[in-house]
């Protein structure tokens, strides 16, 4: 098992190396990327300013708390982009017959698909996210105790997994439909909106959907509520940060089942 993980890690590093090498073949592309990096940051900062103007307090959440929530949510967003953005292209890979090559290699197909090309744009998302999160931490004077640090770590892993699972499950629909672009846009907008605001502002029915149907509220709303001592409509026993990780792992495996089922349906177009 450890040998298998090391092998995957080894191949993953080589994929990263080849990705960078490929991207350096096109210096102008790299250049435009460096230009777009501060742009991303500016947009992030602008969103922050918009947030300050918009909310003094919202449903009992003050601005510092919302910034904390928004920042943490954005960090998991950036990480999910880095690790799972490839799933947005499942439709494309299906119509181009791209899975054939992965199926021919003695490695996990999803691993190859997800990691054969790293997306560096996710890193630029992480920069403004971290700044907003840090701002929120200072505003509410968040205590970085050992237990809190550990909980934040659980939330980052769990939240990234929940987002990744949604990408994988939605992207896998393309195995049947060959296209999944618009669905991804909808699911992304949902997530973005959900993560920006405390879910408690929504009607109970929406809260119910985000909690029990599509557990997006667990990405950051529930664990942050626990960390900041806020009330939630639905309550759960135990630590909500552990719930985030647990649900993350659960939905991730569920989404992998959808992916595997889709892969069996794959009909390898072209000759």
């Amino acid at each position: 098992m450890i040998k298998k993980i090391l092998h995957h890690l080894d191949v993953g590093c080589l994929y990263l190396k080849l990705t960078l090498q490929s991207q350096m073949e096109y210096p102008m592309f790299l250049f435009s990327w460096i230009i777009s990096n501060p742009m991303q940051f500016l947009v992030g900062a602008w969103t922050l300013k918009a947030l300050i103007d918009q909310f003094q307090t919202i449903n009992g959440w003050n601005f510092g708390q919302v910034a904390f929530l928004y920042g943490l949510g954005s960090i998991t967003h950036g990480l999910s982009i880095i690790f799972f953005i490839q799933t947005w292209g499942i439709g494309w890979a299906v119509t181009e017959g791209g899975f054939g090559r992965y199926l021919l290699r003695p490695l996990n197909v999803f691993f190859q698909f997800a990691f054969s090309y790293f997306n560096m744009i996710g890193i630029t998302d992480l920069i403004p996210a971290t700044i907003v999160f840090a701002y929120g931490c200072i505003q509410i004077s968040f205590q970085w105790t050992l237990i809190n640090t550990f909980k934040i770590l659980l939330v980052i892993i769990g939240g990234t997994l929940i987002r990744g699972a949604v990408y994988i499950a939605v992207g896998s629909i393309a195995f049947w439909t060959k296209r999944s672009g618009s669905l991804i846009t909808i699911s992304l907008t949902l997530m973005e909106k959900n993560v920006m605001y405390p879910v408690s502002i929504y009607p109970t029915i929406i809260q119910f959907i985000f909690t029990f149907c599509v557990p997006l509220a667990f990405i950051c709303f529930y664990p942050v509520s626990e960390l900041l001592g806020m009330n939630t409509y639905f309550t759960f026993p135990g630590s909500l940060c552990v719930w985030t990780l647990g649900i993350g792992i659960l939905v991730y495996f569920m989404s992998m089942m959808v992916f595997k089922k889709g892969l069996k349906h794959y009909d390898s177009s072209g000759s």
Partner: protein
Amino acid sequence: MITVEGLSKTFMVPKRTAGFKAAVKSLFYREYTEIQALDDVSFKIDEGEIVGYIGPNGAGKSTTIKVMSGILVPDKGICRIMNHTPWKERVLHVKNIGVVFGQRSQLWWDVPVVDSFELLKDIYNIPYDEYKKNVDMLVETLDLSNFINSPVRQLSLGQRMRCEIAASLLHSPKILFLDEPTIGLDAVSKIAVRQFIKSINKEKKVTVILTTHDMNDIEALAERILLIGKGKILYDGSLNKLRSRFGTNKTITVEFMENSTLPEIQGTKILSWLPQRASLYIDTQEISVSEVISALAEQLELSDVTVENPPIEEIIVQLYKEYEI
């Protein structure tokens, strides 16, 4: 080594008609046609064979290769390759096989060929010594040394194909599937690829299954051919047998000293008639070659005689016609 029994696979393809109106209609209601890509396909292949897999476009060649290499899951049927079922024990199975799709690249487009090889070394966990030995052998026999450090996008098709073949053999597979390996190649590259396939079959005992539309590939390489049409295996046997079954005609070309009239010979047809040179078509079921030659020799003072088999392409066309595929 390879056993395929009763393999069937159907694809559901949406019926489409051209035009905007039809496209709008298809949004709401879509009809599907069932295409039987494979229909009860069975065959056995032994270790060390080179099998030519032929058939017209859309006959099911690529589908069979994809099932055998574990990319596609068939609807029903058995496929055992070195004691593995490809789609069930994919990871174990793919270590034993090498696959080249002539129309699709397995190399990284923007990085030097040798880096793609290094990646494959890692993916297949090839021990360093074995990797080194294989790369040296492949670089030498496929003559890759001039461009192994160039990015793939800068290679010619022939160079790329040679690299593709090398890439599929790095992990010393026992079986090599080649799907149209000579498509679009010039004569020199074609011959180089054929010679290489022959040599690894002979020296490394690699079993080769190749699909092609170039009958010269088949003639140069395959002892045995499998003909598939509309998803069914129509012929399985040696090339020579196929020849004797369908190639019941020969062409004879004679050169002679002086102008004279050609005798009428039963069972032959004059193809061309020039002063000092003539070509005849012979139906060997009606008259033997030696009878024709002796009849000609009686009338003419022959200086040269050439007897030719019909080109294999002609036999294949005849075969396709007979099976209406």
